[in-house]
């Protein structure tokens, strides 16, 4: 599909999940993507854009991204002020943080995220209804569990480090110290770099092969 150098997509819906986090739904305009890929999105009249993992499913008739406002940032404060009916500038989806079809059929998946790092996993599980998965979501406060009702209760574990409202009180790394991970699992890590480094050590110590560990760092 031929695209212009600058492509405007009309905003269809905005859902504010917390004071600083929101989902923007905008026109798909024929864009195709693989769940787990990211997309560059920016305000309609600015020169800057940022990469966001796609939150919505491959076959949804729209695209959604999950955005956390960065104080004094060049992009997110502007995106936050946009209204339905205005547009965002969108580039073609790219990225390699995707799941292989044959693995979806045969393997268990462990998705480990911090904060908005849950975004690609939402897209993956909604795009692959048959996938066998467990999501481990690390947040500071349980309010940051971002649409956790989207996942069956048994598939989603919330680790909250600053309140006791999660399924587990403490960091993801503390939780993982006490569990044994199936060595055949495909493990996907998405979120802040420190979490990924720490979890990487735990996975390595548990004997998870490097080839089964996939990481996408959020910066």
């Amino acid at each position, binding site marked *: 599909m031929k695209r212009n150098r600058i492509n405007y997509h009309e905003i269809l819906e905005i859902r504010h999940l917390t004071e600083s986090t929101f989902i923007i739904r905008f026109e798909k305009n024929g864009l195709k993507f693989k769940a787990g890929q990211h997309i560059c999105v920016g305000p309609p009249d600015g020169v800057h854009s940022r990469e966001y993992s796609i939150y919505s499913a491959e076959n949804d008739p729209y695209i959604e991204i999950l955005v956390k406002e960065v104080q004094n940032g060049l992009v997110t404060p502007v995106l936050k002020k946009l209204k339905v009916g205005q547009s965002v500038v969108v*580039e073609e989806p*790219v*990225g390699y943080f995707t799941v292989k079809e044959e693995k979806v059929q045969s393997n268990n998946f462990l998705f480990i995220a911090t904060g908005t790092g849950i975004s690609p996993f939402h897209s993956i599980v909604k795009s692959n209804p048959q996938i066998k998965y467990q999501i481990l979501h690390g947040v500071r406060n349980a309010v940051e569990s971002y649409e956790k009702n989207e996942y069956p209760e048994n598939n989603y574990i919330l680790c909250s480090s600053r309140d006791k409202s999660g399924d587990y009180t403490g960091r993801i790394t503390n939780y993982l110290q006490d569990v044994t991970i199936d060595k055949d699992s495909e493990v996907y890590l998405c979120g802040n770099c420190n979490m990924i480094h720490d979890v990487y050590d735990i996975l390595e110590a548990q004997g998870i092969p490097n080839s089964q560990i996939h990481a996408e760092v959020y910066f």
Partner: protein
Amino acid sequence: MKYYLLTLGCQMNLSDSERVASVLNAAGYTKADNEEDANLIGILACSVRQKAIDKVYNKIFTWNKWKNKKNLITFISGCVLPADKERFLKLFDIVFAMPELPQFPKMLTEYGITSPMAIVPEPNNPIDEIQLFWDVKPKYDSSFEAFVPIQNGCNKFCTYCAVPYTRGREVSRPSDEILTEVKSLAEKGYKSITLLGQNVNSYGLDKHGEEITFAELLEKIGEIGEAINNEFWVYFTSPHPMDMTDDIFHIIAKYKCLGKQIHFPLQSGDEKVLIKMNRKHSVEKYRETMQSLRRILPQATVFTDIIVGFTDETEEQFENTRKAMAEFKYNMAYIAMYSPRPGATSYKWEDNITLDEKKRRYAVLSEELQKHTYEYNKSLIGKTLKVLVREQDRKPGYLSGHTDGKIVVRLASDNKELIGQIVELKITSAARFSIEGELVEKTVSC
């Protein structure tokens, strides 16, 4: 009217500058030897380092002062970050993205009537736009070495690099055009042809099966080499490890015109640093590919890129890089001390390894590199090798060139007619990063 072009940065910019020169020559401009003699001055900018951007500002402030004394039009193109582009619009007369090059003469004609902003054409399809750019026949700077762009843009988003923000997403040039250009160059007697792209070996992937793969492209170039009497060597840069496949090595092994030198960037030998760099491959995957390379192409030389002192790189992580350097036995490594690049993701992180520590790590890696390069170069003594003579050496009375593995060779000779020829040399001595040889009577190719 004379033009002067200042090109900053990488081989891709050098290649782009050949096309800019071609467009300006076709429009009736002639090249000036220096900027003082020119009425049209342009920069092909590089956003990789702040130093290069600082140079742009220094130059434009000087040139804008010259406008009080003479007629002068200034322009800028190349790798420009969005934020810099906004500033440059106020400083330069014309600012354009490289894919807009075919419209450049029109912009020059219209300059003075409208503002630079107004003459930038309406946004086009980026694929059509880059196609028009590739349609421009370059004016090659050399008569025996040429760069052929095959791919533009980057989808990899390494955290230390701004290229995805300056050149956009990966677009592959049609293979029939590449093959026509390579064949034409080979027939004209070009000896060294380098295929260029930000991720050269992801060639074709953006076309989702509607274009041949990089390995298939190399195979077709290999067939061109077999059909042409002239000897020439084809290289490519820069590849990404995640797209490096065994079939590429098999094709290189099969055809003599495909240079037996592989540029294979490692960047770091530590898994966690690679994750932080967002390199999308592990050391383990790199090692597997390197083992294939050595098995399939045992005669190949391997060059690499490494960054030392990346944000938060610990001593232990650096040591893993040193061990990787020892293990992979490179013939050359372009070691860079990390410096934050404006526009790149890592620019916002603290550059928390001191310059002294970066220098130390640089020195340690350089020493490690030399252990192997010297051993390898000594192993060539007594052998007769084909060498492309490229230029007069800095050492008086000497010429220099490189083997098909791009090992630098010096030759005691004043015969400038050898420049641009592939000759046979008997290797007589070796140093850490070069070898020296004597001319064998028969000239192989001219």
